[in-house]
């Protein structure tokens, strides 16, 4: 079983304790207290951190040494039997993503797209951006990166399944894998190395792929000239080195990334995992703060990286008068194409009534 490579001495020498001090969900302004608490976690002692963690992944980004504080925390949570979410929810997640022995693949070539286990990419992956690669696809449990179990204190599931997933991808003859869900990219570039799992193919973040593709298609780009809020997602914390592509792509297609409070390393997560783990009060509060922030800074669009964040926030963002859109669709708009992902209108009576041309009393 793979083991986490974690260097205790780096934490012992650390003065910043950024993992806790910068945490947006726990109050650790006092560095001495943060240091003591973090030492408890490392030593396997009981710590309030283990219970209070919202599993936002951000401490992975905050650690200046790349020492994987979040992965360590997840290991300790599991050792102590702490359940970050209700047990049946964890059980359901473990059940639904287990490999079932059925490979769902397109005409896979050496360079392929990974849909992860997110069917939403069926509606997103269209048009010129994906010319020549759209059919070279892998999808489903057999290729699912399993990083989601970090939310559920189940590192053991990742350690069990990830080597087989990597082998499944390799067995398709894939040399370069464009990860459409950056949780996969983060898994292959951060989580797998942290556990000493070799990755025998080159992971490519889809932002990098799209940036290069947009440069090839630059003559077709019609600048959008819009202001957009960017919604960072939890797994972006596993690969913060890719964040510059947001600015690069926005620059190519004429989008201003509004300089709001909750972006970059201060981003708030979509909060849907927090809803399941900590309850609705905290989740509602976080989502409200996040969306109010988008409105305050004049965003007309909210651009999503992760389809799950879109599912969580799109309706709420739309109700605030901001157009929710996935990054792929945003790029397609700039190329004069139509967006693939349409907003579901369930639970949105005003928009739904308008769409259905019905008048309510």
């Amino acid at each position, binding site marked *: 079983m793979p083991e986490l490579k974690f260097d205790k001495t780096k934490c012992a020498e650390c003065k910043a304790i950024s993992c806790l001090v910068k945490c947006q969900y726990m109050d650790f302004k006092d560095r001495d207290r943060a240091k003591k608490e973090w030492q408890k976690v490392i030593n396997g002692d009981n710590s309030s951190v283990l219970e209070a963690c919202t599993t936002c992944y951000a401490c992975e980004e905050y650690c200046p040494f790349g020492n994987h504080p979040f992965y360590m925390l997840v290991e300790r949570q599991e050792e102590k039997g702490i*359940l970050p*979410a*209700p*047990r*049946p*929810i964890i*059980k*359901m*997640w473990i*059940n*639904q993503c*287990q490999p*079932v022995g059925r490979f769902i693949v397109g005409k896979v070539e050496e360079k392929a797209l990974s849909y992860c286990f997110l*069917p*939403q990419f069926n509606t997103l992956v269209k048009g010129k951006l994906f010319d020549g690669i759209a059919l070279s696809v892998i999808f489903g449990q057999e290729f699912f990166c399993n990083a989601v179990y970090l939310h559920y204190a189940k590192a053991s599931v990742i350690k069990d399944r990830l080597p087989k997933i990597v082998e499944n991808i390799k067995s398709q003859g894939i040399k370069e894998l464009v990860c459409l869900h950056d949780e996969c990219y983060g898994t292959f570039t951060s989580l797998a190395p942290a556990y000493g799992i070799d990755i025998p193919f080159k992971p490519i973040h889809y932002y990098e792929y799209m940036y290069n593709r947009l440069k090839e298609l630059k003559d077709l780009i019609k600048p959008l000239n819009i202001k957009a809020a960017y919604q960072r997602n939890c797994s972006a914390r596993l690969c913060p080195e890719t964040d510059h592509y947001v600015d690069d792509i926005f620059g190519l297609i004429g989008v201003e990334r509004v300089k709001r409070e909750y972006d970059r390393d201060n981003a708030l997560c979509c909060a*849907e995992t927090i*809803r*399941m783990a900590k*309850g*609705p009060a905290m989740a509602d509060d976080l989502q409200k703060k996040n969306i109010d922030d988008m409105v305050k800074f004049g965003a007309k669009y909210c651009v999503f990286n992760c389809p*799950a964040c879109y*599912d*969580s926030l*799109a*309706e709420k963002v739309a*109700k605030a008068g901001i157009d929710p859109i996935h990054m792929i669709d945003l790029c397609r708009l700039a190329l004069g194409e139509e967006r693939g992902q349409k*907003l*579901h209108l*369930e*639970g949105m*009576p005003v928009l739904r*009534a308008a769409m259905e041309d*019905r008048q*309510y*009393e």
Partner: protein
Amino acid sequence: MSDVYEALQKIVGEDYVSNRAEERYFYGRDPGLMPPHEPDYVVMPKTTEEVQEIIKLANREKVPVTPKGGGLALTGLVIPLKGGIVMDMKRMDMILEVNEKSRYVIVEAGVTHGALKSYLQKHHFHLRHSIPDSPPIATIVANAVIHGQGRLTQQRGFNSDMVSGLEVVLGTGEICRIGSCALSSQWFSKGPPLPDLSGLFLGWFGSTGVITKLGMKLYPCKKIREVMLFLTDKVDLVPEIIRKLTHTEMVEDIVVAAQPIPPRFEGIVSILLFITGDSEEEIEFKRRMAWEALMVYFESRDGGFVSVTPNMKPALLAMPSKDTAKFADVSKGGGFEYSGPIAPIDKYPAYLEKLEELALKYKLIYASATRVIDGGHSMMFSFSYTFNRANPDEMKRAKVALDEAAEFALEEDGVIWKPNINEQQMVMERMDQNTLILMKKVKQLLDPNGIMNPGNWEVK
């Protein structure tokens, strides 16, 4: 018997009566597991008067009559066990009146739930009725006759509780109005403050008369309808979870699902809650009330709400649900039947254990979608099994499992819902003798010649 055929032709016209093999084959069976038996004639009346003439003819000739709606009960209730006439009510398909202020609709016997849903959405979109999770071709009358349930059953009781009046052709041929419509122009009550005579027909499966028109209560159709999904892996908690949810009086509908396929549901009980409101604030209030009611399980980590993503919602909010049809094909062969006892809610863990035990014993795939009835007074627990119609052995195993499930339900304080003829006998064997005698008297009074759907509710 050719005289009967000719007489039927005179009543309904030659296009609407048949004694041909293809019709007799089709009308001799239903989609469930009961053995087929063909009728001699199939007739499709258009009016109450035609129904009356057919019943009079049947009395004269001593020919059995089996009324049929959508034919979807699955328990053989429209199979003409003693031949005779199957009276298909589908031509009586008029929606006669919607009273917006008193919130009821009057329909003819062949009006389907799908047709009424469409009609209300188009013409009275602020009103709705209790839509069952059967296919949309299920008729409103037949569903009421079997004491069906629907999407408003958790709040309003059985769909038959929502009946607001009846027009009936008795087994002896008289046309009779039941409820307020017996003396008023309006159909607002099936009984109170009068003696409630609707019980002479509802639940009798057409063995006391033919319902030709029915008043059905309608209810506010709120602007927003939302779904919540609560999971637990402790089956013993389910009755208390239901008690807590129904105590809030905030939830429109509660369905408790348990099934091993797809694998994500294995070992987990899913509780679907539907809430409605006219504003986001109303929805949010109800959502919060449901959360607070179950907070104790969230804190103990024994249960929790799963986020319902936008792509999950259309399927979960669909009325009727398409899950039953999907489940019917899990075994690849389109077979599906269930025994659905109405039972005390505290029996849920025992019933689920039995469902799983029988599935294991008879090598069947199971599912259960249990609906809470009338604010938590009881539940409809479904012992559902899927089978391949091209596999007689699997069909036989499903039948035996369902028979055992029915026996178990009766032993565990349940009452079998829409029982087949064998189950009817099981029920009557356990019934209080004086009640049984009363049923016999009712049947003899309303159907002295024993022509109405014979074989059903026959007191020996």
